[in-house]
């Protein structure tokens, strides 16, 4: 049962073509890591999957929704697809609890007591129960990112997208965020992550995709891909990564 289908997707920014015919299929409960140099198109691909970027051609189907033009259908899709960003993007004027409860309350019309219950549950999942009433700027980067993950989870998504979520964090804080993501993967969440954490990709991702020049250059089970890269570009890329 495939949760994400991407078929021959092309995407250009002006004259620059960043995705040159990308296709992939992610099964339910699978974890896909997208790796590659900056500018290889991996973040753009991820952002296309929830409609933050509009594709020029091709087809994307995710969590049972076809990505299209209709705004209402797109919102429906987004209730089932969570995304976490590199820069956390918490709402600074709201407490942690309010950040998490806002979308379930106004988008899904969840009752306040129920929303609070869910917020406490997802906060516990990311290990931040005691921060319910804190404001984002009172938290460390790692904590803010865990709250951002909790905020997404509160919508009960079927697929989670992670866009370089640890790139702004120092190693210690990176670890606590990765642990949360690993737990999610173990719990069976379908996940696609753009990452520079090769160790994490190797350990947690079921499949790893190496992107190069807007194309899927190499793809395979993480273990095989890292142990035995087929293309010179991936060999070079894996070698240059010391981690």
């Amino acid at each position: 049962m495939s949760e994400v289908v991407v078929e021959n997707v092309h995407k250009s920014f002006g004259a620059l073509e960043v995705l040159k015919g990308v296709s992939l299929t992610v099964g339910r409960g699978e974890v896909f890591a997208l790796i590659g140099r900056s500018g290889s198109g991996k973040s753009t691909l991820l952002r296309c999957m929830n409609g933050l970027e509009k594709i020029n051609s091709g087809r994307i189907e995710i969590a049972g929704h076809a990505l299209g033009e209709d705004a209402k259908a797109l919102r429906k899709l987004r209730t089932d697809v969570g995304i976490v960003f590199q820069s956390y993007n918490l709402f600074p004027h709201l407490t942690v609890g309010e950040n998490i409860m806002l979308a379930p309350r106004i988008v899904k019309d969840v009752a306040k007591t129920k929303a609070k219950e869910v917020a406490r549950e997802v906060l516990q999942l990311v290990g931040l129960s005691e921060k319910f009433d804190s404001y984002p700027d009172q938290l460390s980067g790692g904590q803010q990112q865990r709250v951002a993950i909790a905020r997404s989870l509160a919508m009960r998504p079927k697929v989670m997208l992670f866009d370089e979520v640890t790139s702004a964090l120092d190693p210690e804080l990176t670890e606590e965020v990765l642990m949360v993501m690993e737990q999610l993967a173990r719990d069976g969440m379908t996940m696609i992550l753009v990452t520079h954490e090769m160790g994490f990709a190797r350990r947690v991702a079921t499949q790893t995709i190496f992107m190069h020049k807007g194309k899927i250059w190499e793809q395979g089970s993480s273990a095989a891909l890292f142990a035995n890269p087929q293309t010179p570009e991936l060999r070079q890329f894996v070698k240059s990564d010391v981690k």
Partner: protein
Amino acid sequence: MTLKTFGLDQFGFLLFSLQWTLVLTVIALIGGGLLGFAVALARTAQLKPVRIAAASYIQIIQGIPVLMILFLSYYGLSLAGFELPPLIAAGASMTIYASGYLAEIWRGCIQAVPKQQWEASESLAMTRLQQYRYVILPQAIRISLPPTVGFAVQVVKNTSITSIIGFVELARAGQLINNATFQPFRVFLAVAALYFVVCYPLSQLSRLLERRLHVGSSR
């Protein structure tokens, strides 16, 4: 004919007229605020024609003197058959003037909210209206407080222009008293002092807000 001198009675008249300056300021800020808010939203709308229309409105209002707006609404409309009392003409033109500037100030504040806040709220499946209501405007309003209060100072002072169509606010009252007393220095010094008494605390408030908002960058 006895020449009166500038005394307590006259000062009382200035104080009384100051009320009308304040009334006019309040009308301009409320009316201009409502209109300006709508224009600011239109200025940041998704539809390009709406954005262009709002931008043109702002350019036109900012590109003509308040005095012309005032003459157009007072003399212009009376030529067209509408006889406007000075308060209405003055209130309407100050409203239009304030809306042009507040719209531009607030557009800047809305756009000062990081693009990522739009992306995050959009990704949580919020409608555009919900994004404005729950995420963007609460942050934009915070940013807008210092420049808005700062602009209120300009409005207080610019209401003096309405003296030209015979609306008796503070500046006009000064002229009337001067006509009777021929003590321009005393009279206009008192008028200036009264404007200052209103404007100075507002400027200070604007600065205070700015400092406050810069320190703790949340809430």
